[in-house]
């Protein structure tokens, strides 16, 4: 009846996950009860859960990422403490538990923190920057988000029901095969990623189409803000690379469920093929993450330097070059598997070539700042911090791309330091910069600058205190993923790294405090202009938060930095000139399709993990039926009458006009 599921699945003998799980469960229940009792449920359902508004979906993506960042961060703290104490002893985490933690940490941080964070920011901002009213496929967008949430839910469920994979974040066979991982851990891993992978693919298709097909009048390709370009590149990579991941995991699952032999040691299977395929997705994946971050830095640096982005066209070229070359380097992740000198040399050189367009970008940002009137607001701090940090990470990457060096450093702590250096210093700093920069746009009030800056400095310093020791430990020969060790020389570095983790934690706390403080002071921090940073692109041309329809009139773009030009040339006039006739606006209706579909997908995923076949059928049918119902819907749009558009737009105009006249008087 319940497949492999019985009471032994609950880890009663392991207090840590059980207590953590219980605390989270109580917290969730408390929030739910609060929501229901306070009567917020209808609001949540109509305004958020079923929303197909790209801005709302973007915010929900970012919320998901932030919550999962706390989960992944807790894993990180536990691992740092373990390695600080486990010198010639077992520490406090038994091996089977430690292995689950590092696997869950990597999986969560890449798939459920970094990915949703950047996808959320792209969703929130790109349609606004393009001057349009929505993304190309609004309901699909909601489906994508909720499927991602399903994946996250399943990974967290493994904490209290069953176990998670002990294989590392990429589940290499034969370790992840049935003979070495008979439990449900790898199944949790694989099904979560299959389901959320569909969500990511959908988001990718949606954003590519949006950039290619929905741009406002005059917004031709070479007038798009840089963030739109990096969004295009990153999502093209999603569309091209994620199917590889899906196919690879599908083969692994066939091995595990139906006795296939794609990646087994016997019957003609080939484990090396898994390495090859997973990295053919894996390397493009790191650029999927970092390209949007590059876009964010471009926006932030140009805004806070008060200058147009230096070398816009070279930036576009560099972005697209990275997009293509990132498909030509994946072997650098398994130089040591033995493909031989010719193959290794070619892929080594190709990897180093990627550093060239990246370098072009760094110089462009520096030249954008050069001679500018720089304001060091929090988003700018993250951007400058990124430039310092990322250069180090990029350099150690190039070092690892030298095959003989990699033979010494592969899978050492040096590698761990490299990729944290680029992912924290690149992706996470970018996500935080974007968060600080666009928060006022999304919610209509700024974030507290003092707590924000404190958050930056603690994170920045904490990062170096944590990860420089890992570089050193790696050069002293320490390998990754060690539950305990006996080498005295590594010990001090592990202790320093743990101390760095404490500093990083303070940084995170500062940012949480920042959010709370800002929400409490929101009246004082209110932004009525819609343009708190003196921005340059179209998202600042509408009010904060923007109305559902974003723009009463689709803006007419005459050049790069569209909004900057509007402001410079005809601000007064364009605001005061009587607007042409307002018109009715059609917007897509909200739809529970995404939520319902994800609900059934969750059931199906859970049932697949535990081999509960009747439930698999139930979940599958449910998800399918949801799509059928959606496909047969009669009307999918509603009309906002012209008067209502006019009313909303006039309030906004009034607000701005009074500000301008105030500025004029001053």
């Amino acid at each position, binding site marked *: 009846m319940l497949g492999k599921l019985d009471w032994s699945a609950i880890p009663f003998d392991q207090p840590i996950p059980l207590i953590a799980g219980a605390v989270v469960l109580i917290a969730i229940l408390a929030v739910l009860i609060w929501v229901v009792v306070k009567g917020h449920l209808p609001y949540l359902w109509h305004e958020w859960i079923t929303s197909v508004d790209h801005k709302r979906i973007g915010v929900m993506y970012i919320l998901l990422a932030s919550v999962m960042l706390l989960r992944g961060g807790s894993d990180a703290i536990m691992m740092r403490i373990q390695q600080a104490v486990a010198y010639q002893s077992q520490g406090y985490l038994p091996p089977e538990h430690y292995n689950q933690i590092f696997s869950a940490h990597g999986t969560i941080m890449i798939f459920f923190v970094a990915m949703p964070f950047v996808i959320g920011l792209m969703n929130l901002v790109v349609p606004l920057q393009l001057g349009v009213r929505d993304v*190309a496929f609004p309901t699909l967008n909601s489906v994508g988000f909720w499927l991602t949430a399903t994946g996250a839910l399943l990974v967290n469920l493994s904490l209290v029901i069953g176990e998670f994979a002990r294989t590392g974040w990429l589940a290499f066979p034969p370790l992840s095969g049935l003979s070495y991982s008979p439990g449900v851990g790898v199944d949790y891993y694989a099904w979560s990623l299959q389901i959320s992978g569909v969500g990511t693919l959908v988001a990718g298709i949606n954003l590519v189409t949006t950039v290619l097909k929905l741009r406002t009048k005059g917004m031709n390709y070479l007038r798009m803000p840089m963030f739109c370009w990096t969004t295009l590149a990153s999502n093209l990579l999603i569309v*091209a690379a994620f199917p*590889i991941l899906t196919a690879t995991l599908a083969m692994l699952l066939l091995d595990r469920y139906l006795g296939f032999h794609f990646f087994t040691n016997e019957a003609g299977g080939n484990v090396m093929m898994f390495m*090859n395929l997973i990295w053919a997705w894996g390397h493009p994946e790191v650029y999927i993450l970092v390209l949007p971050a590059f876009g964010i830095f471009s926006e932030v640096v140009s805004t806070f330097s008060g200058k147009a982005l230096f070398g816009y066209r070279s930036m576009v070229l560099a972005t697209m070059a990275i997009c*293509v070359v990132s*498909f030509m380097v994946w072997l650098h992740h398994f130089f040591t598997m*033995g*493909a031989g000198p010719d193959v290794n040399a070619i892929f080594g050189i190709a990897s180093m070539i990627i550093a060239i367009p990246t370098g072009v970008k760094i110089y462009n940002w520096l030249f954008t700042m050069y001679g500018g009137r720089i304001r060091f607001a929090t988003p700018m701090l993250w951007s400058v911090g990124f430039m310092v940090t990322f250069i180090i990470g990029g350099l150690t990457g190039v070092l690892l791309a030298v095959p003989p060096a990699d033979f010494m450093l592969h899978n050492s702590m040096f590698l761990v330091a490299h990729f944290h250096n680029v992912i924290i210093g690149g992706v996470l700093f970018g996500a935080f910069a974007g968060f600080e920069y666009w928060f006022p746009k999304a919610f209509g009030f700024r974030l507290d600058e003092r707590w924000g800056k404190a958050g930056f400095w603690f994170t920045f310093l904490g990062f170096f205190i944590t990860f420089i020791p890992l570089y050193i430990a790696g050069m002293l020969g320490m390998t990754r993923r060690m539950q305990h060790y006996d080498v005295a020389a590594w010990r001090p570095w592990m202790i320093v790294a743990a101390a760095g983790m404490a500093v990083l934690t303070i940084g995170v706390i500062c940012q949480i405090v920042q959010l709370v403080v800002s929400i409490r002071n929101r009246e004082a921090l209110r932004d009525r202009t819609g343009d708190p940073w003196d921005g340059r692109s179209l998202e600042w041309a509408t009010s904060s938060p923007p109305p559902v329809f974003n723009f009463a009139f689709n803006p007419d773009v005459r050049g790069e930095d569209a909004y900057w030009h509007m402001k410079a040339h005809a601000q007064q006039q364009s605001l005061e000139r009587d607007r042409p006739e307002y018109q009715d606006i059609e917007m897509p209706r909200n739809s529970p399709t995404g939520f319902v579909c994800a609900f059934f997908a969750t059931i199906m995923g859970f049932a697949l993990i535990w081999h509960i076949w009747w439930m698999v059928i139930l979940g599958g049918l449910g998800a399918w039926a949801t799509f059928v119902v959606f496909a047969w819907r009669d009307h999918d749009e509603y009309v906002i009458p012209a008067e209502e558009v006019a009313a909303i737009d006039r309030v906004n105009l009034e607000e701005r006009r009074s500000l301008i006249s105030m500025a004029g008087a001053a």
Partner: protein
Amino acid sequence: MSDQTHMPAGHDLAPGDEEQHSVGTRILGYVVGLVLALLLTATSFFIAGTDLVWQPSIPVALIVLAIAQMGVHLVFFLHITTGPDNTNNVLALAFGLLVVFLVVGGTVWIMAHLNANMPPMDQIMMRQ
């Protein structure tokens, strides 16, 4: 989204979007596509099982037939043309082909070297 303002390039057709043709011509297009597709499928099955042709040529023939099949789908069902209204689709197709070429070609190359250098244990024994 009905009132979205589109690109200056004007109308760029998505795969599956129809130009203004009469129903007759459209149906004809699909029927021709279907017949071609069925023909290619039938030929593949026939060739795979026959001994009328030189055996080693069979895999090559199957590959050619498969590629032709893809072409038929692209032209008759997905309406990829070389017209100016199709730039995005053609570029997307080119990008897709490039990636497939890189990944498949790279994989074949890598795996050939790996298999040559790193055979399973028992085969190492056998070689010696």
